[in-house]
């Protein structure tokens, strides 16, 4: 039995990982819900985000500025991918959509590898995130606490976009019944473009924020993508609240399990998914929906 401080520390780790997964998964899930496309390039885009932070930091020397420029870059990348490739796949079978986004993922990762090589890069922790913070009975790295706060803010922002803006209204309606949205005079194609770009920025941002915590490699996104699949299966396909809650649950499961036996931490996550598939296949927040 681990000590209470160790357990609390792992709970915080779980919160950090969970909020990150929530951000990655909400990008994946709103693209899936609105466009009906499961984006297999999501993991690659996570890595691209981390490298964007790495490059921009070298030019700007300011973490915040690097992230701002990096977001702009991800936005443009999202627009380009949607216009040049994804939009031709809305009417094609799911299998084709999966295959083409998987292909995009390969190309992105290989581009990164061609430019930066396969070795791990380090992104330094920003100056304002150095050191550790005293939290009563435990000491916890400051940047991870900030990470939780920043991502929580971003998720609230995403919530406001989805639930308080006209575009969010169209997205939520489009997830339910895209045909009727068209009948009400709204051209969903433009919304699709925006949603795809927002999803790409969300996952890219997750990559940027996570870069100081881990080694940045071209393949770093693959495992995140697999985990975010588990998250959206947990939360229900296309559900934003599901992605957030599912992400937090997944993060805590991985972290708390490793407090007891680290070798089972990832395995537990997938075992939970298997259990849920048997007991509640539509996920926590899901209805079968259009997928």
């Amino acid at each position, binding site marked *: 039995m681990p000590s209470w401080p160790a357990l609390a520390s792992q709970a915080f780790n779980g919160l950090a990982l969970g909020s990150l997964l929530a951000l990655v998964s909400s990008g994946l899930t709103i693209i899936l819900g609105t466009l009906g496309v499961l984006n297999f390039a999501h993991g690659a885009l996570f890595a691209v985000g981390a490298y964007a932070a790495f490059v921009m930091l070298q030019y700007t020397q300011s973490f915040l500025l690097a992230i701002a420029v990096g977001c702009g870059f991800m936005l443009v990348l999202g627009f380009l991918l949607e216009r040049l490739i994804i939009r031709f796949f809305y009417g094609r079978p799911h299998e084709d959509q999966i295959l083409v986004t998987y292909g995009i993922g390969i190309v992105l990762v290989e581009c990164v590898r061609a430019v930066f090589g396969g070795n791990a890069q380090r992104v330094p922790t920003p100056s304002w995130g150095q050191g550790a913070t005293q939290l009563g009975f435990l000491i916890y790295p400051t940047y991870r606490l900030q990470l939780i706060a920043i991502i929580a803010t971003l998720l609230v922002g995403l919530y406001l976009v989805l639930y308080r803006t006209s575009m969010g*209204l169209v997205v939520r309606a489009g997830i*339910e019944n895209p*045909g009727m949205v068209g009948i009400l005079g709204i051209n969903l194609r433009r919304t699709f473009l925006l949603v795809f770009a927002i999803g790409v920025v969300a996952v890219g941002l997750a990559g940027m924020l996570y870069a100081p915590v881990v080694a940045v490699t071209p393949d770093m996104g693959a495992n995140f993508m697999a985990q975010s699949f588990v998250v959206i299966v947990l939360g229900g396909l296309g559900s934003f609240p599901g992605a957030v809650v599912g992400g937090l649950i997944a993060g805590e499961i991985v972290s708390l399990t490793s407090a007891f036996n680290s070798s089972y931490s990832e395995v537990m996550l997938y075992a939970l998914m298997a259990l849920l598939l048997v007991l509640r296949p539509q996920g926590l927040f899901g209805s079968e929906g259009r997928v």
Partner: protein
Amino acid sequence: MSLLEVDRINTLYGDSHVLFDLSIRVEEGEVVALLGRNGAGKTTTLRSIMGVLAPRSGEIRLDGKPISGLAPSAIARLGVQLVPEERAIFGGLTVEENLRIAALTAPNAWSFERIYAVFPRLKERRKSLGRTLSGGEQQMLSIARALIRDARIILLDEPFEGLAPLIVRDLVNVAAGLAREGRTMIVVEQNVAAALSFATRVYGLNNGHVVFEGSSAELTANPELARDFLGVGV
């Protein structure tokens, strides 16, 4: 020139040929009823006009300009509005959000107050989610979404289907009021009496063809006329 002209369209549903050289015409300010048995092609006609199903051949014109082949969203922005049979309320959106999304692309959108004056019940339920509404309330909301857009021509597909008689009466009164105000409508309805009470002109459809054209009065006076294309085989 008529407001809406459907000119010899042929529409297929899957690989089934539903409309055969079908032509109808709607003048400004007119309420036209499409009557016919199940499977006669009434709903398909409305869906063809809205652009949900593209006609294989023929042309649909609004103000003399062809609209067939445009996307439903483009046709809606020109002022044609379908109120679909299944109502298609967004269940996860509130009543007010349903109205707000409908008004988004309408240049002369009505105010919520004007809508609530027509449907006071919707005002009471404006914060409720669409999926919690009763059938009658859903139908009101579905019609309200077309009204708030100030549509030039409203296509009502079976607006009274599956509703209790009292609610049907209320909705008929609303429709009759709109007709008096001069709003152009096409209505498809099984409830012939209800449809005839506010329609001015009637097309009878059978097997995807127009088999009857005349005024409502004509049909009301001679019910046996309708039997040929409506009734249980006599």
